[in-house]
């Protein structure tokens, strides 16, 4: 039995040595892993030719490993196969990036077209809004012209309301009849709500200059408050008492004085609408 036992031990040892020799070199292990990675990624789809080269390189390395497992050729071939697999990966990435860049370039074009389109639409909307505003202003002016004397001057569109219609003599409280008239004026003004208004009070030359000044200021205030109460933005209206300083007619006659007693509403900056 004994010689047979020795023989078995020697055979086993020989087998183990043989096994040890077939352990692949690290280069080959790495090459297999790299190829596995590349072939399961985008490379198969995007750069099949490169992946094929990597596979051929790996096949060469595997063959060399079977023939001469420990040779430098095997290690070098495996090393090269590893690099070729990584190369396929890198080229696949490049290809994907190129596709992304191409898509981005297309998106850029599309976006620019969208922006141009939007600008066109915005411009059309703006033009329409301006036309609408002009139309409203024109309508408002027509309505005002029926209610009061409307005159276009350099300072703006001037609406003149007769003082005797609005106030009792020497008073600054609006008459009930005036409110009705002012309602209509205010409604017409609402169409041009974005414009600044100046309300000016004017008197004739009877009485003292200072009392006329005060009265005209109070009357202008009263009209201003009333227009605000009808919904016009208060910050756009200023009231000024002018007193007897700017007569439009001769104060010597009754008729002239009546014309001088008045309230003017000026629509300021009536730039392009009033024609």
């Amino acid at each position: 039995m004994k010689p047979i036992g020795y023989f078995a031990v020697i055979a086993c040892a020989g087998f183990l040595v043989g096994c040890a020799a077939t352990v692949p070199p690290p280069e080959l292990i790495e090459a297999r892993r790299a190829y596995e990675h590349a072939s399961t990624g985008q490379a198969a789809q995007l750069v099949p030719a490169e992946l094929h080269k990597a596979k051929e390189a790996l096949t060469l390395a595997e063959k060399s490993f079977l023939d001469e497992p420990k040779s430098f050729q095997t290690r070098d071939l495996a090393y090269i196969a590893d690099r070729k697999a990584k190369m396929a990966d890198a080229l696949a990435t490049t290809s994907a990036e190129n596709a992304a860049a191409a898509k981005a370039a297309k998106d850029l074009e599309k976006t620019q077209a969208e922006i141009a389109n939007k600008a066109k639409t915005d411009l059309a909307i703006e033009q329409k809004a301006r036309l609408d505003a002009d139309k409203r202003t024109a309508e408002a002016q027509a309505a005002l012209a029926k209610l009061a004397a409307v005159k276009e001057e350099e300072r703006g569109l001037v609406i003149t309301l007769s003082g005797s219609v609005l106030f009792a003599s020497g008073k600054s409280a609006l008459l009930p009849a005036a409110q009705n008239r002012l309602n209509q004026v205010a409604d017409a003004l609402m169409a041009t709500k974005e414009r600044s208004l100046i309300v000016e009070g004017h008197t004739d030359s009877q009485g003292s200059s200072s009392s006329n000044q005060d009265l005209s200021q109070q009357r202008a205030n009263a009209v201003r408050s009333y227009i605000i109460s009808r919904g016009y933005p208060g910050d756009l209206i200023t009231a000024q008492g002018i007193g007897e300083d700017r007569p439009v007619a001769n104060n010597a006659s009754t008729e002239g004085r009546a014309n001088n007693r008045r309230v003017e509403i000026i629509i300021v900056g009536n730039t392009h609408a009033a024609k």
Partner: protein
Amino acid sequence: MKHVHIAMLVGVVLLAAVIAGCGSSPEINKEASTSAIRAAEAVGASQVPSASLYLQLAKEGLAKAKVLAADGDKEEAESMLLRAQADAELAIALSRSDVDKKEAAEAIGRVQELRKENNLPQGRK
């Protein structure tokens, strides 16, 4: 006779020189690997982290091949040169991939910025 002697002597010396030349360091063709390394440097591989490693390995491979050739291991030297070439080529591919990645990211960024500036909805992804 003297002339013949001199001619023979010159011939022997020349032959010896040729043999010595061959023996001292076998000729290896470094052309492919050196040009690949130069190309990798030209595309800026040393500035790209992922590529610079392989450029370095390629240079080391070339140096090793020269040593092997000097030691007379022609076959091993040539095999090593192939390693260097493969490294340099990978460095080139990785540099390009990096450049393309940056360009793609920039292009995508430009589109997004433009859309944001103009209050357009951002595209999918």
